[in-house]
């Protein structure tokens, strides 16, 4: 966005507060991407904070001729997520609220269990396949942008997404079999 470039120039000229609209604009997509990559909604805001802080410190190294600001920012988010994954601790299982009716609670439990199994299957998929799937399916990024972030060709992104989907399809068909 040309707007981003204008804001960046103001920040680089010393207007620190000018960085705020950048954070407001990108906080949700960055937190969403990190949360889905890590599978941990609690830790993602800490990592996201780190992403924006790093982006601020390295702002002078951003080159608009090489990529858009969003691609550059998501690349930082991707790298920070990879580092955070290495230090990740298992997330405790969420509890259901007790005030729900028995039927609604049972349905939610079933859905929660299904989602937990899919989350497990996603976690078992290798890092680069999982990242490609998360960015394409959950964050709805175009393939060209994912290719720039991952530093690979578009064809490679597509094949990684297909591979990830195949693995998930296997997990889903096993789930279907378990439910019958």
């Amino acid at each position, binding site marked *: 966005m040309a707007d981003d470039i204008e804001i960046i120039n103001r920040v680089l000229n010393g207007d620190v507060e000018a960085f705020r609209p950048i954070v407001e604009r990108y906080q949700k997509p960055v937190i969403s991407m990190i949360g889905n990559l890590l599978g941990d909604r609690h830790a993602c805001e800490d990592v996201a904070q780190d992403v924006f*802080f790093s982006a601020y410190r390295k702002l002078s190294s951003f080159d608009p001729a090489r990529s858009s600001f969003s691609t550059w920012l998501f690349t930082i988010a991707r790298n920070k997520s990879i580092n955070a994954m290495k230090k990740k601790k298992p997330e405790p299982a969420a509890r259901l609220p007790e005030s729900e009716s028995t039927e609604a609670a049972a349905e939610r439990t079933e859905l929660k269990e299904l989602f937990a199994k899919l989350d497990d299957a996603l976690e078992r998929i290798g890092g680069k396949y999982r990242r490609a799937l998360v960015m394409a399916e959950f964050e709805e990024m175009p393939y060209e942008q994912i290719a720039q972030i991952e530093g690979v060709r578009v064809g490679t992104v597509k094949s990684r997404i297909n591979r990830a989907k195949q693995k998930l399809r296997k997990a889903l068909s096993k789930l279907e079999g378990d439910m019958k």
Partner: protein
Amino acid sequence: MKADRIYETWKESKKDIVVSKGFCDRVMRKVCGYEQSKPAPLLDIGEFLDKMYSHRLTRAGLIVAAALAGLARMAFALWTFLAV
């Protein structure tokens, strides 16, 4: 529940992100804290040049020095060329 529906519902649940209140403020506090902790430069070039240009005599002196440096460079280039 069919597999496709499970997958789509699961996918939709991944977009359900709530950013905590004050996230932006926390980031900006960190950024401002970083700026305040940066050491002041020993010599502020901009401020130095402003002071130099504000006095007529120093301005004139700078212009004369620049002109002499230019002439000296031309003379050196000419001497190098003729020496060859």
